[in-house]
């Protein structure tokens, strides 16, 4: 096991209760703000001390409340990419990277190590620049270079793209993906963005109010989220309370309709979710009368907000989204959804 976490911490009225394990590969911690993602990273790093629990990094015990083990931040060998990259402003790029070179390597090969990583991270020509003179993407690469020469046992990335604009972000995400795949140990990426999580992570843990809601393979989680938090964080807009009303059928009181799910419904079902692009005016399955409320134009798609004919007025409207090229001449009065596209969400 490359990383093994089981921690408990009380922070005022907020409770952090997290347990997971991860081998080599990238694990995403996906959660809304205030769900405890960053706190979890800080506990692994040693910046925060859990009240109880155990943390093991690459087979090394770094924290154990029972046996009073609590290694210092310096001893944990954790590579932590801070949100703002935390480059030392008074040092040049080369000096910043040199700071990361371990003392054991310092005397003999320091210059080789630094110039090797500068080449690998495409930082040639920037050696004498100060961090303030670099672009956001360059700063990120310097911070990563500084961490990689440090030879950490685990890599933690805290919202790696929050300091960048969206254009740069897409470009850098591909680059970062390559770096992460060549890193031989486990990586944890904290994010609230489903795009980042989907592209970078092989597994995703959903965090909700300080608890680990569900942990699963990325593709599986996006295809079939099984909890409300997972559905919401993977981008499902229409989530509503529901209860089973037959072997393959659910009743949705707030929408005033019954939907056929096309597959058996479990007993613990508490809600359903329907992704905005799964509605269609051409479908006869689960077709229901709707009232169009609002049309929102986006660069490449339309978002249409609608209500079911007998929908509870205090419940928000539903989202239907489709590509601009698929827009029918007149918006339909009846919308259907296939049973397999209804996400069944359990407690």
């Amino acid at each position, binding site marked *: 096991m490359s990383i093994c976490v089981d921690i408990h911490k009380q922070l005022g009225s907020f409770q952090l209760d997290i347990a997971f394990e991860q081998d080599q590969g990238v694990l995403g911690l996906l959660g809304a703000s205030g769900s405890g993602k960053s706190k979890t990273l800080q506990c692994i*790093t040693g*910046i925060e001390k859990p009240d109880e629990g155990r943390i093991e990094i690459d087979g090394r015990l770094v924290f154990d409340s029972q046996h009073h083990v609590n290694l210092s931040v*310096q001893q944990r060998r954790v590579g932590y990419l801070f949100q703002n990259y*935390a480059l*030392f402003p008074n040092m040049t790029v080369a000096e910043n990277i040199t700071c990361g070179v371990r003392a054991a390597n310092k005397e003999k090969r320091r210059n080789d190590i630094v110039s090797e990583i500068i080449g690998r991270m495409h930082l040639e020509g920037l050696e004498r620049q100060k961090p303030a003179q670099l672009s956001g993407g360059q700063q990120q690469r310097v911070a990563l270079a500084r961490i990689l020469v*440090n030879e950490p046992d685990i890599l933690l990335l805290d919202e790696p793209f929050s300091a960048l604009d969206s254009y740069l972000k897409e470009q850098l995400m591909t680059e970062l993906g390559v770096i992460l795949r060549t890193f031989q140990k486990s990586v944890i990426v904290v994010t609230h963005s489903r795009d980042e999580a989907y592209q970078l992570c092989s597994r995703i843990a959903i965090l909700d109010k300080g608890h680990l809601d569900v942990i699963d393979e990325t593709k599986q989680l996006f295809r079939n989220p099984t909890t409300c938090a997972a559905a919401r964080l993977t981008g499902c807009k229409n989530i509503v309370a529901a209860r089973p009303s037959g072997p393959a059928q659910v009743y949705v009181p707030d929408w005033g309709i019954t939907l056929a799910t096309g597959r058996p419904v479990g007993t613990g079902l508490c809600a359903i979710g329907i992704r905005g692009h799964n509605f269609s005016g051409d479908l006869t399955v689960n077709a229901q009368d709707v009232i169009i409320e609002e049309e929102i134009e986006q660069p490449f798609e339309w978002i249409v907000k609608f209500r079911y004919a007998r929908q509870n007025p205090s419940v928000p409207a539903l989202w239907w989204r489709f590509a601009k090229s698929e827009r029918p001449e007149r918006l339909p009065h009846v919308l259907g959804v296939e049973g397999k596209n209804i996400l069944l969400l359990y407690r």
Partner: protein
Amino acid sequence: MDWYPLWNSLRIAAISCILVFFSGIFMAYYVARLPRLLKGVLDVVLTLPLVLPPTVCGWLLLLVFGLRHPVGIFLQTIGVQFVMTWYGGVVASAVVAFPLMYRTARGAFESFDETLAWSGKTLGLSDTYIFWHIRMPYCRQGIIAGTVLAFARALGEYGATSMLIGYIPKNTATISTTVYQLWRTNDEYSAFIWVLINIVISAVVLLTVNMLEKRSRERKAWS
């Protein structure tokens, strides 16, 4: 003309400035880490000399170092006497100048981005290295400004100094006590020269502080 007061003033100001530099930084760094109550109490005590009249400071210093008081008596047995000696002036100036260094350094430390220290720690850098190579350079402008202000204050100290070390020509005389003495003895001309010297030194000091603040603003605008 007797230049002794200039030399004596500069000597007292320089030595007390060095003392205040280290003690001010030390206290600023450690007080910020204390529990809240202790921090509040210490903060008031350490800043008091800034707001107390210098004569009150002088009186308190005499209470401690006076030759009829325990500490003063003890110091005398090991051959140290702060009353009526030039190095007593160092003590008086240091006490009065300390809060300026302490408060400016504390302000500078509070503006420090703690994630820099944390990232240094994750890279395995020692706390000492982080303090001298990351924290201090980051807070450099504020610390230099505090040092210059402390120097200026030490140079201009009159109240506590005159009470603790009095005025002995060619011995404890400083610029400020000399000006008072010359005015008292109606030597308007000499007093005027010393006033001019004092104004020049103070103006240079203030210009330095302003330049540093301007540079620090420009540096901030950069990043």
